[in-house]
């Protein structure tokens, strides 16, 4: 098997996909999170500012989902096909909600009528909340494992089996961390009374996160077998949960010092550490089979050919500095508090 810097290609691609989904979770995390607070703001102006806080950047942030999905398809087609066809209903809901959400952003402020704006506000709030929740539900299902038989055939339930108690718990945890992230992002972009209100809401969000995260972690340790196997082998990785904890603990301190940009970095780090935790816990499995571990989808049996992975790694090496450049330029251009003008939503 071909290697680069001593790491085999499927593992490298696993890192690429992991990085892309982490980027998606962090960036769209604050977009979806901001949206999940939407109905907590009472004034029309506040809601407009909240939407325009993500206005110029959410399209770019969404690129991470598109590249992440493409990377999964490209590098691990078996994983892409098995997961999406098995999780048909949640993914279809997710996709339709994404469409509704982007329509809400674009059309909400296009009319002055009260009913129009109220309807879009509800659609915006519900779609953001459910998208965050569903992403967590899918992650919960992956952690728990699918009923996969020989030849990666899915043998599990069809309509509502994705809503297992554990998946729901992970769903709430994801929603809570996105809401924390979203509230911090909005603190960075707003001023005045909306800002004061957000400081209050952020506290609720963090409590929501800490409670749901604790319950989910306990449940994972007790009821999901084999979760700590990888950690027993390499105890050094116990540093990840500790780092995640420290990053969370640092947020209130930074908020009280009004260092919102740093607070956003630390809540992003929390997400990054937690996702690394998940990635490390699964590796080299992508999708555990609950029928027989031999049927599991792994980075080796799901991967594209060495040749194809080599080409794609080259594409990533050329493309990512470009993308990084675009992003830095975009974020620099729109740094600072929201100012509504005639181009705003």
């Amino acid at each position, binding site marked *: 098997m071909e290697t680069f810097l001593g790491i085999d290609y499927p593992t490298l691609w696993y890192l690429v996909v992991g990085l892309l989904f982490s980027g998606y979770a962090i960036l769209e995390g604050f977009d979806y999170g901001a949206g999940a607070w939407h109905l907590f703001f009472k004034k029309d102006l506040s809601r407009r500012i909240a939407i325009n806080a993500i206005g110029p950047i959410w399209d770019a942030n969404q*690129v991470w989902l598109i590249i992440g999905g493409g990377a999964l398809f490209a590098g691990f087609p078996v994983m892409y096909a098995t997961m999406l066809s098995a999780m048909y209903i949640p993914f279809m809901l997710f996709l*339709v909600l994404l469409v509704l959400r982007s329509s809400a952003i674009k059309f909400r402020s296009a009319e002055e009528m009260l009913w129009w704006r109220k309807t879009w506000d509800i659609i915006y709030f519900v779609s953001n909340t459910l998208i965050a929740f569903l992403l967590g539900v899918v992650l919960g299902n992956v952690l728990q494992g699918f009923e996969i038989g020989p030849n990666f055939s899915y043998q599990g339930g069809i*309509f509502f089996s994705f809503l297992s108690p554990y998946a729901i718990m992970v769903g709430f945890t994801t929603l809570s961390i996105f809401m924390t992230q979203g509230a911090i992002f909005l603190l960075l972009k707003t001023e005045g009374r909306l800002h004061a209100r957000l400081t209050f809401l952020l506290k609720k969000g963090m409590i929501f996160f800490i409670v749901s995260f604790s319950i989910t972690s306990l449940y994972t340790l007790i009821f999901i077998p084999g979760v700590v196997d990888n950690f027993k082998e390499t105890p050094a990785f116990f540093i990840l949960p500790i780092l995640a904890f420290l990053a969370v603990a640092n947020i209130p301190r930074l908020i009280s010092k009004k260092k919102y940009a740093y607070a956003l970095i630390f809540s992003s780090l929390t997400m990054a550490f937690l996702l690394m935790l998940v990635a490390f816990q699964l590796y080299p499995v992508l999708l555990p089979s609950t029928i027989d571990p031999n049927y599991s989808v792994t980075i080796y049996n799901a991967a594209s050919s060495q040749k194809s992975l080599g080409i794609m790694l080259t594409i990533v090496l050329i493309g990512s500095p470009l993308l990084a450049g675009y992003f830095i330029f975009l974020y620099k251009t729109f740094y600072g508090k929201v100012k509504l003008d005639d181009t705003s939503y």
Partner: protein
Amino acid sequence: MDTEILARIQFAFTIAFHYIYPPLSIGIGLIMVIMEGLYLKTGDKEYEVLTRFWLKIFAITFGIGVATGIIMEFEFGTNWAVYSKYVGDIFGSALAAEGLFAFGLESTFLGILIFGWNRVSPKVHFISTIGVFFGSMFSAVWIVVANSWQQTPAGYHIVGDGLSARAEVTDFWAMVFNPSSVDRIIHTWQGAFLAGAFLVLSVHAYYIRKGRYVELSKKAFKIALIVATIVSFSQLLSGHSSADGVAKNQPAKLAAMEGHYEKSSPAGLYLLGWVDNEKQKVTGLGLPGGLSFLVHQDFEAPITGLNAFSEKDRPSQVNAVFQFYHIMISIGMFLIALTFYASFLWWRGKLFETKWLMWIFSFSVILPQIANQAGWFAAEMGRQPWIVYGHLRTSEGFSQEVSANQIVFSLVLFTVVYTLLLFLFLYSLNKKIKHGPYDEAKNALEII
């Protein structure tokens, strides 16, 4: 209905709906680049007004294009799992390149384009416009490459068999430049330019008829007319080259396009007609030996007909392929006549006084849209029964795990949401047109 048919209906519905928008944004993008370039070059404020006006329309079409495009990206996995595993190794790298090189470019610079007027210099704004336009062009490249590979696979070998069989890439550039890629990319791009140019022509013809923003509209109309005249003609050449490729690489598709059944005989070229698949007969008006002449420059040269293939290896919906193909051609010809006549009147200085022509232009926006859809339907239905030409059948490609009920559920969802989306699109397009290019810009300030 069975899963396969439902999966096909859902894919056709979602892709056809998606395909309204990206061509419009590519086409409007080109016109916007020209308008903003003229503004920077001449300093004429009217070009800036035009750029800002079309940017607003661009933003809506682009947004709906992205939203409906994400659905396509994941629908391969949800509904076509076997196909996804089969082509992932090949399709994947094209998709990854699309995301990183094209989509990343267009989506990041879009923010600057729409919201950055007051934050960056005019030059940087112009560069962003070019960036978004190029990004959308590259997007089309990679997607059409992937689709062309399904039509004319190259640069690959098949590994494994049965359910675990899949195509693996052996030569990346041969895969990218497979026999039909270049022709189809150019044909698709030009279709997109026409879609955008005719929207601009329609809107400004409407203003000219109504006597609103007349001088401004004449400027925009001229830009779009030049693009439309050049492209509608070069589209004919690219279509011819594309059909030559189909004759060589997908003879069954070409035969279906003209309803040619006999194994090997000279084939006619129809202007219009109706195919009876049972009797294997075309009733219509055409030029005998015309297809033979176009392909071989000889009216007597034999063309491979549908009967050269066994029933299970050739398209079954021959009449549909025939009709879609001929609708595209007829519209293409009409657009050439229309734009050349308009250009002639412009040269004689009578263009904007010819009221009936402005009427036709006001409604002409629908024509490239129909031609684009019809062309794709002909290309994709002509590819049947194969999902990967000669290798994997459509009936083998769908997700075995997904039940018919699930697809009915998602199909209903898509129908509801897309109907809403189409309504919103037309509503806000209409509103922006009625409102006009000059922005009062009071509303935003009042709300603050």
